[in-house]
């Protein structure tokens, strides 16, 4: 396996069964993906799409029904790989009877960290997440935002190479969300690989380099955020001071009238639109859509969202 690949899944499948072993839910179906070192990778999907299941499979909290998952080239069930991983669960599943300091020391002791170094890191992390004033209060007394922050701190106690964040901004107010996003960007700047899941699309669009969109356990889209958001079959020309009469022959008119051509580019939609489109398409036509089916992607309905709809007619890809 390429050392640049941090996570690799091959045909990763998970079927939840009932007490008698009968298949109940196909939570994940033949997932193949790779996450590379240093990128922020987003797992998107509606509720029940298999995002959390994927993360749990990667962490060894669940066992695959079929297929394999590797982290740092080792099987997901290998305990040793956890030395290099940080994990923030969907909810802050922390021990409510411990205070912030005790929580971080408890998790810190599970790693091979020198006691003096551990103490330093605990202080730094508490400071980083802004809980210095509340570090002696038991977690049960914390607000949800504070619990998310101490949750993030515990995920970073070992200074991990890769961090798995399951819905990191869930339940946070805009300020809290912004703070968490800032932290994530800081971590990327420090060369960490980050995998996060969520359905708050604006947040994901802001911070992810690559995303995978899951729907009912199937991978529906995978790629660079910018590439995915580009409307490939539409050319957008941005002009300035263009008279309305020149609309029919844009380039000639622009040149003939000596107007300044500001750029010829592909217009982009928002991640939210893309996401909704894929989900609706998948629900209308189950099983039809495959990864990379971009040409089949319908154009957004005109006027549905004025800010994002292309303003120019389709004219092929401009160079």
């Amino acid at each position, binding site marked *: 396996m390429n050392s640049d690949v941090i996570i690799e899944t091959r045909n990763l499948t998970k079927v*939840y*069964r009932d007490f008698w*072993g009968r298949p109940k839910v196909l939570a994940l179906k033949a997932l193949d993906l790779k996450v590379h070192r240093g990128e922020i990778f987003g797992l998107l999907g509606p509720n029940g799409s298999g995002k959390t299941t994927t993360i*749990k499979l990667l*962490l*060894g*909290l*669940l*066992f695959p*029904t079929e297929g394999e998952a590797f982290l740092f080239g080792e099987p997901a069930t290998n*305990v*040793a790989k*956890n*030395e290099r*991983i940080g*994990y923030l*669960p969907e*909810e802050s*599943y*922390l*021990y*409510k*009877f*411990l205070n912030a300091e*005790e929580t971080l020391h*408890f*998790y810190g*002791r*599970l*790693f*091979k960290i020198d006691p003096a170094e551990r103490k330093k890191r605990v202080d730094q992390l508490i400071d980083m997440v802004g809980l210095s004033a509340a570090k002696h209060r038991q977690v049960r007394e914390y607000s949800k935002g504070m619990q998310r922050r101490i*949750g993030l701190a*515990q995920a970073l106690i*070992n200074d991990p190479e890769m961090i798995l964040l399951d819905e990191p901004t869930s339940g946070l107010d805009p300020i809290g969300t912004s703070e968490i996003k800032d932290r994530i960007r800081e971590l990327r700047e420090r060369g960490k690989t980050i995998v996060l899941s969520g359905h708050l699309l604006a947040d994901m669009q802001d911070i992810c380099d690559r995303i995978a969109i899951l729907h009912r356990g199937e991978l529906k889209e995978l790629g660079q955020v910018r590439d995915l958001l580009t409307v490939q079959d539409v050319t957008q020309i941005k002009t300035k001071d263009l008279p309305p009469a020149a609309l029919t022959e844009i380039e000639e008119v622009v040149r003939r009238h000596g107007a300044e051509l500001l750029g010829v580019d592909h217009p982009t939609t928002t991640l939210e639109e893309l996401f909704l489109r894929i989900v609706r398409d998948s629900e209308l036509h189950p099983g039809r859509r495959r990864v990379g089916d971009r040409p089949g992607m319908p154009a957004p309905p005109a006027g549905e969202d004025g800010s994002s709809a292309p303003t120019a007619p389709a004219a092929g890809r401009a160079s």
Partner: protein
Amino acid sequence: MSALSLFLLLAWAQAGGEPAAAADPAASPSPSQGASAESPDTSAPAAEAGANPVAAAAGGALPVVQPTALLAEELANWQKWALLIGDPIRTVPVWWGPILSWVKIVSLAGLLGWVGAWVMASLRGRRRARVTIGGARPLDAALLLAILIGIGCVFVRQAQQSEQLPQVDVAGVALASLVGMLCLGVGAAWLETVLWSGILRERRIGDVLVLVGMHLALLVAVGIALSMPSGAMPYLGARLGFPPDATLLTPEGELTPSGVVAIVLIGVQMALTLMGFVVFLRIALLVLGEVSAIRPRRLYAMGKFSWVESFRKTRIPWAVLAIFLLILAFTHWFLQPPDSQRQAELSRLYVGTLMLLSSVLLTVMVAVLTPITLPNDIRFQTIFTVVTKPVRRLEIIWGRMLGFMGVVTALVLALGGISLLYLERNIGGRIEQLRQEIAEAREAGLDNQAGLLEAQLDQLQTRRSARLPVGGSLTFVDSLGEPRIKGIDVGQELEIRSFVEGATQAEASWLFGPMIPHPVDRLFPNRPGERYPMLSMPVPVGLLLHEGTIEDLANDIYTVAYERAELEARKQGAEPSELSRLNAEVSRLEEQEQGLLREYEALVARYSDLVQQAEAAGDAPEAARLREQAEALRSPDVPVQMTFTVYRTTKGRPGEPVYASIRVVHPFSAEAPMYPGSRENSPLLIDPLARRFGGNNPLIPELVHSDTFDVKEYYTNKWAFPASMLVGSQGYLTIQVQCLSPTQYLGMAEGDLFLVASQGSFLANYMKGLAGIWLQAMVLTAIGVWAGTFLSWPVALLITVFFFAAGEIFFPILNQLATGQMIGGGPFESMIRMVSHSNQMTELDATLGVILAKSLDAIVVPIMSLLIFVVPNFSAMDLSNLVADGFAIQWATLGANILLALSYAVPFSIAAYFILKNREVAA
């Protein structure tokens, strides 16, 4: 015997049961059974006998069946070993035998777990079948049919045995049994298919190797079984529980169908054991790998976490402490001695109650705390943040156990400390009060009253000590002078003592010695049959004779003399070179003996001189000092303590006690022969210095020491004999007790009379008693954590409580089930007996209901019997009775109990590890 019941019987036998014990000639003269049947006193529960430390030590042994190494002469040496090692019913009679037996039990549990886990995994992972019968796979349908037919076969066999159905045989074997075997074959085929398909699908190399290894083990077992000579068949049949009249061989020496069945059974039995070893090896390798990866810091982290969780989240330890203090505040209202004459009971009551209270509270705490935390951790998903750290599953299990045991340790120390303070305040206070009352009585001239109070004080102080008792082997002589195993039964149902009649020749005789025959062999030395193993109940001469004293020196002289006598004996027929070496050695010993004799004479002279000086001294303190110096040259008298009961056939005179005589007989004397029933009354030992001293041996002034005493009921009667009686005894001694009062009977059990080898600290003994509670808590913690790994907390809690109740209260019943001694049948038959008010001894009429009940019992009882190897013997770890009765808990007993506790706790924790490792915590 149907195939299904046969299968269950095998499973039972594999786990150490004793099938058809009555039909097994090897089992019927079993020494252990014989001992328990013949001598009621070995487990005497009452008073001091009940706290017999010897019995407690035996209870603390590993849960293995004692060996009966009867092996057919026709078997080759390797076949004997193969049979012993492959047979879990018996322990190999070597030092590592008990360890091997433990491994066998763990192996079979591991085999069951491994097969069960793979069957589950295989069934869950299999794909939709192409061909089905009524929605089920053909093989599944066949298995279901086989189970139903198998149960039907059990029913048919029961009906045939009750003569309600005619017996139909095919080739000498019951048709129902043959059909049952066919069902067993279907089951085996189903298991093979499921295991192979599941393991190959998962492609787990280790488990594929295990499966291959198991089949190799099967082949080896079949090979060994087929190699058994036909001459050994009667013996092998007996081992398997075949009736003595079963025909296993034709007159020509060929195997009959029953003989073939016996060979198959031997093979299956051995195969199961060997397969278990294969699984054990796999488990051991996995666990060793896991253990090598364990780091103390992670264990500490998990342990500390459990500690904090216990105190902060559940707060159960605080509740335990509060309840203990609350109960203690009112205890003295309810704990009172039966009457003022029985002050010793006060100590027993307080100590027993406090230890019981500590034990109950700690047990409840552990039973509630340990099975709750892990299921809640999984339920509320807090475990996610733990298992995604580099902590190993075994570290989670052991770390949690360490944390809980830390809480238990803190509470044991807290409860123990409070208890000791409480005892000091109450019992210590009563002792001080008695001392004052004695002084006041003396001042008032009430000597009788003072004597009575002194006796009470003595009793209290005796119980507040840690006596190390040394017991002997008890036999009786009846009123006509005939030796007996037991004395008179006075008809009291619950009385565990035998009685001797007053003013007759009847006597009870305790024999001490390092190598003494079993009472049955002593009284009937020429009886036919196998002899019981020798008993070892020596007088601890080294402990009782103080070093450097007159008696110790005299004993040293005898030690040298014995050594010399042995060398003299070896000279007979020795080679010339060996003879000269022996002569030189004898000369050296003679010189050593002379030197010791001179030293002895000098010490005796010094003693006499000091005594004379003391007598001549006018100054009383000076005389006392001299006497003290003189006494320091002698070993103190050997203390004997006795607790007897009296059965009165007439009232006697008010206030007049029952009198008894006691006699200590040196092994050189012929007055207490080892074989009282034999015609030759020879002494136990030949005096090697007899020729030197003739009839006037200064080293042993008297060979028989007698006395008379009045028996105080409910009291510990104390007496002592001169230490010189132990000189040259080599640990042998006889103590005889007779009742002197006519028409009265003196009752005694083996544990009722003992020598006191030492008297230790009550405080240290109390702490050892608490250690017993700690060990119970450790085993229960392991069970609680184990149950919490795969059950929801309410079920885990119930399972933990069930294990404790079964091990503490119902262990004797499980023992009866496992050894086939349950009278009145299994649970279903017993239910019918209860409903129909039938007693346990009569055979029930063979109605349909009775046959059905017996059939169900035939299936259920063997499975229930397996519980004895899974349910920990909690009562064996409870040493509080010894503390309450003032007996020392020996380190050997404590050590045995630690091993016992570990032998349960470790497998449970390992099982918990495998369950947690293979469990999807996020599922």
